[in-house]
């Protein structure tokens, strides 16, 4: 794929930059605020934060249309937000409230908001890649120029489903952007230890599609590259594979505590990464990097950015407060949605 202008030379639109900034701070604060409730024990379940990966969430999705789609992973709060999902029903879903966008049935690992084109996350690795490919097939059959962004982690590239769906989308030139968030680790496993290529986007060659590895801490670079991939897809030229090099600051999931340092043992656990590594990545924090560009290129002042951040903090607080104030679902909800028809009264068992 030959990307025309470099992202550095490009004339960036102020509104776009501010929108990216807004979405990225929204994600960061959303994740942080939710953790507070989680740690307090207000709600249960695994919670995988996108902190550190905000650019990878926003860069590809910020310019999508409402009629485009995204599919996600177990770490998908950020994808939802970047695709424009309302925060209240998202927070309520993670909490497991009746007001959740999935009625509290899915939770953190299965967020979906069809109203904004978010077709759902899979808590099983690569589980939504077939869905993304099918959604792209639907776009093609419908004759639209809609696209699908399919997120997955570095932990997915050795699953059979990665191969099957990339081949399918490539062979039929379906409009999918396969977006690998390479945050270096699958839980505690470094991708280099389990994967036969050093650069994941090399695998695009196996499907005869464009592949590109980009700095996933730099929203602008990523956005720029994705825009061309999206344009290709809209034009019927088929899928691309984009690898965003990024990093998760926190542990795999919020409540997990691992030793830091690859030789460090604590009980039965052994560390898998050094604190120096974490710090090095944090030096390149995607929000700070973007803010620096915005301010440096005089698109906006620091105080303007501050204002945006304050607005987002307020929004995020409201959202989690909404979740806190909502009720749990009726037990009745156990009996609906497994089949198109609710389980009939005489087929139910008394549960409580």
């Amino acid at each position, binding site marked *: 794929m030959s990307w025309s202008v470099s992202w550095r030379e490009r004339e960036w639109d102020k509104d776009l930059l501010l929108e990216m900034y807004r979405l990225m701070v929204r994600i960061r604060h959303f994740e942080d605020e939710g953790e507070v409730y989680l740690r307090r024990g207000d709600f249960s379940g695994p919670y995988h934060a996108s902190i550190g990966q905000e650019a990878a969430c926003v860069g590809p999705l910020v310019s999508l249309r409402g009629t485009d789609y995204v599919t996600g992973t177990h770490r998908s709060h950020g994808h939802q937000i970047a695709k424009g999902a309302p925060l209240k029903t998202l927070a309520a879903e993670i909490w497991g409230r009746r007001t959740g966008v999935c009625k509290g*049935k899915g939770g953190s690992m299965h967020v979906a908001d069809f109203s904004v084109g978010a077709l759902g996350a899979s808590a099983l690795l690569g589980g939504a890649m*077939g*869905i993304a490919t*099918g959604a792209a*097939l*639907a776009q093609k059959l419908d004759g639209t120029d809609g696209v699908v962004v399919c997120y997955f982690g570095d932990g997915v590239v050795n699953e059979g489903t990665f191969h*099957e769906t990339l081949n*399918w989308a490539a062979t039929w030139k379906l409009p999918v952007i396969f977006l690998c968030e390479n945050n270096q680790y699958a839980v505690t496993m470094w991708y280099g230890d389990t994967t036969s290529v050093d650069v994941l986007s090399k695998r695009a060659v196996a499907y005869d599609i464009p592949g590109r590895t980009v700095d996933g801490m730099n929203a602008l670079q990523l956005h720029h590259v994705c825009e061309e991939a999206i344009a290709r897809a809209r034009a019927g030229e088929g899928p691309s594979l984009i690898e965003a090099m990024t990093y998760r600051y926190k542990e795999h999931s919020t409540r997990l505590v691992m030793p830091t340092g690859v030789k460090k043992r604590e009980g039965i656990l052994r560390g898998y990464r050094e604190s120096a590594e974490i710090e090095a990545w944090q030096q390149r924090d995607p929000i700070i990097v973007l803010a620096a560009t915005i301010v440096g290129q005089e698109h906006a002042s620091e105080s303007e950015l501050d204002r945006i951040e304050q607005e987002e903090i307020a929004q995020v607080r409201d959202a989690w407060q909404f979740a806190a104030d909502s009720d749990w679902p009726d037990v009745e909800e156990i009996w609906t949605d*497994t*089949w198109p028809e609710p389980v009939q009264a005489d087929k139910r068992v008394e549960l409580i």
Partner: protein
Amino acid sequence: MERTDGSTHKVTFIEARMEAVAEEMRRDPKVITWGEDMRSGLMGFGGASLIDEFGAHRVFDPPISENAMVGVAVGVAALGYRPIVNLCVANFATYAFDQIVNQASRVRYLFGGQAASPLTVHIGMNTALAGGAHHTDRTYPMLMNVPGLKIVTPTTPRNARGLWKAAIRDDAPVIVYDRAMLSARKEEVPDDPDFVIPIGQAEIVREGTDVTLVSVVCRDETTRAAKKLAEVGISAEVIDPLSLVPLDIDTILASVEKTGRLVIADVANDTNSAASHIAALVADRGYRYLRAPIRRVCTPDVHIPHSRPLESVVFPTPARIVREVQTLVEASDALELVVR
């Protein structure tokens, strides 16, 4: 549901399937289909003529990637299509169990009803091929344990027609399991394009009074057994469930209430067969009707041999069913004599 004129035409089992698919594609432009060798028509979907009529965008050969065949179906179904996926043979279908179990069956629930999942998956079963253990699985009992799926098992051209239409029109993911050996079987089927057999409705194939014989995907063997039993004075009521999920247990219970005895023939392996679950349901809700133990005639828990003389006896045969019923009836009659 049938047309009032009740007119019929004669087709084979495989033609009944092909007609049903073609008619539903005609009726609903959202119905699309893929599977291996669709284009050449080899796998009994009438692919070549479907392409001629509906175009290559609605009927195609996918990459040979069974798991993605189902995954892509879930995605396209979420956006309003009604895909039919031919997975051809039960063993190939295990390659797709991830997407069947984890996605097809549960996206509706996971996303609180936002996603529909109206797909139809065809899984064929070979039981007389001498193909060996990689081509002779009968895995419907495995999928029966997965909530969210419906499972139907056509056994004649007529019910194939009715069940295929029901499956394609249903909003749940429906798995259609059938036996390849039925392909050439011929029968009159209703002309009515809206002839649908509701999913979850059993058929009483033959009425009887001494024993209820439930036949899970071995209707011919069971019917032949019932005829033999009639010759020795045992009147067997034969029931074909047609749907395994949901299961029409009421029809079975009503029959057992009448006969007091239940034998279930099932072409699946014995442990955790569909027969096991039917037995469990009757041992619970039909307990008071029973005058005898519930017997199961299944394929034993062994792999299927290639060698023909072995393969030909490993699946349930009419002789085995007859023997089982006869022993049961005689033993329980004797017992009742003693008790009375």
